[in-house]
């Protein structure tokens, strides 16, 4: 047995290119369906774990999926906006703790998440270096953002304009980095967190400018009507919040009407959650409440259906590959007819010659399956990081 295995090994080693192609094909065709299954399973867990950790989401009526993706992963377009009054409504109901989110602006490709400090506690975010944001204009970076940009506490990041052609739109705001979060391998690692009011500053709803009563601003004043002052464009508006100008930042109008993209509602108990959901049942309500887990499961249902098709296609490809491999082996046997005859003539036993030929095939199949198994283990081990990288950017 040892001797025939040695001969089989010599044959495979001599025809190493053919062997490598066969092993590679069998590895891939074995790994692809299994690996796909593992990856889809991990993706599903990755998607659902965050959704399941978020009991309820409230937002403007529209696409529940968009609302969930934007609020959970800071992906997809900004959903239809609701107002801060919706957070007040939930607070006033006494049924849940509202955590408002305003996910609309970006700094480069990183989302800026306007929220409250309750969000940090809710997600279990911990500041690894520096501190949490305390005053207007401060931000805390997710670990990946800090690593990618090479910035930390004491540095600054600038919000990106929504459109370079919209001169009347959102102007960049330079924000002071005061802290960096510990990595959690979630979407939070890829986000920049600011106080909700800072997000409104980025939008221009809260703003700071030159004191209009100061003599140097007099030239810019067009009209005064009581407390209302109309000025021209020469009045200096601040694009960075500093201790010197922070007091000049002010709201126009009440906070209740200010926009937010969603509210995470954390019910005090299951009954409160049910009651809260019931309050959003009315058809004429301009807001919707969704259970993120349900929304994501519907999405996963679609993904899993696609997976079934992909796996079915891969099985067909596997059959074709195995048939091709069988053909290669048969052709190889035909090419080796003379060698087999020689071994028979000099007295090689049928068992030894058969073992030699079979062990070559078994070795190739085994190598393919083992490599596929190794790839599957590696995928199971490191695929999650890969999935996070793919899913979260």
């Amino acid at each position, binding site marked *: 047995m040892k001797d025939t295995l040695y*001969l089989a090994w010599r044959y495979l080693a001599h025809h190493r290119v053919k062997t490598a192609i066969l092993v590679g094909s069998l590895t891939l065709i074995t790994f692809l369906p299994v690996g796909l299954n593992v990856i889809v399973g991990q993706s599903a867990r990755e998607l659902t774990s965050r959704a399941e950790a978020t009991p309820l989401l409230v937002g403007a009526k529209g696409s529940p999926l968009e609302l969930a993706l934007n609020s959970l992963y800071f992906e997809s377009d900004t959903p239809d906006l609701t107002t801060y009054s919706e957070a007040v409504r939930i607070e006033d109901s006494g049924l849940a703790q509202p955590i408002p989110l305003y996910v609309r602006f970006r700094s480069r490709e990183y989302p800026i998440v306007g929220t409250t400090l309750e969000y940090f506690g809710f997600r279990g975010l911990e500041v690894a270096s520096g501190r949490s944001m305390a005053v207007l204009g401060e931000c805390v970076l997710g670990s990946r953002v800090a690593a990618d940009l090479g910035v930390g506490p004491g540095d600054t990041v600038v919000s990106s304009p929504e459109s370079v052609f919209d001169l009347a739109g959102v102007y960049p705001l330079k924000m002071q980095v005061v802290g960096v979060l510990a990595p959690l391998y979630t979407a939070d690692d890829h986000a920049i967190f600011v106080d909700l009011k800072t997000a409104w500053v980025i939008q221009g709803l809260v703003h700071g400018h030159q004191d209009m009563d100061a003599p140097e601003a007099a030239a810019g004043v067009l009209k005064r009507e009581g407390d209302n002052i109309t000025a021209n464009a020469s009045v200096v508006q601040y694009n960075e919040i500093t201790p010197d100008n922070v007091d000049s930042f002010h709201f126009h109008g009440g906070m209740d009407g200010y926009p937010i993209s969603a509210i995470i509602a954390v019910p005090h108990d299951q009954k409160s959650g049910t009651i809260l959901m019931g309050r959003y049942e009315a058809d004429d309500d301009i807001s919707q409440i969704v259970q993120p887990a349900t929304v994501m499961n519907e999405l996963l249902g679609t993904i899993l259906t696609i997976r079934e098709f992909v796996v079915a296609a891969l099985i067909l490809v596997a059959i074709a590959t195995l048939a091709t491999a069988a053909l290669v082996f048969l052709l190889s046997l035909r090419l080796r007819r003379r060698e087999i005859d020689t071994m028979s003539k000099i*007295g*090689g036993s049928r068992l030894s010659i058969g073992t030699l030929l079979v062990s070559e095939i078994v070795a190739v199949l085994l190598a393919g399956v083992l490599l596929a198994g190794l790839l599957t283990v590696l995928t199971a081990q490191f695929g999650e990081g890969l999935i996070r990288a793919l899913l979260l950017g």
Partner: protein
Amino acid sequence: MISISELRFRYSQGGFALYVPELEVESGERVAVIGPSGSGKTTLLNLIAGIRSPQSGSVITNQVDISGLADGARRDFRIRNIGLVFQEFELLEYLNVLDNILLAYRINASLQLNKEVRQRAVELAEMMGIGDKVSRNVRRLSQGEKQRVAVCRALLAEPPLLLADEPTGNLDPTNKDKVLDILIEYAESKGSTLVTVTHDHDLLSRFQRIIDFKQFYDLPEQVSKTSGPQDLETQDPGPRTS
């Protein structure tokens, strides 16, 4: 060493048939078998070696009725008692020189590959002048070297019978003599029997007896059926095809 009587063989396809009324080869004898292509010389070697079985008659090789053995037993007998050398060398191109020489020990459990056998293989290679090439792949050898590897493979088990099918057919004159010298020296030193099929009449003087298939091939049927193979000198009828 070889005793054939009333041997009849016919391939299942084609009209070729072989009839050998009687053939005796003594132990230690050196016999050349000559004759036209297709006259059955290789078939006769295959029958003597038990590679093929006759339809009737008996083939006794080294005192064993090889035609009466089962396939497995014939293979075991062959690998221990018969050294085969082919015109086309029939080396395994994915093995090096040493592994080709050792091949018989790797494909039949009735031969045990051990340290002594390996040592003997190396010594044989050195005797054949290819001792410095034992690790080389056989594709990188000259024709003469390849045939010497094939001869080493045939001699390694020290068989009492050597069957060589045109062993010098693909060799230049120098290598032709060298290979034949090796075979004859081995046969003489070990007292082995050597039966060689050849087309090369220049080599016939090296053999003790010559069996000419052509002569018997053309004989009338009634003569051939009552005759056996004999030396050319006696002109007695030998094996024939019909």
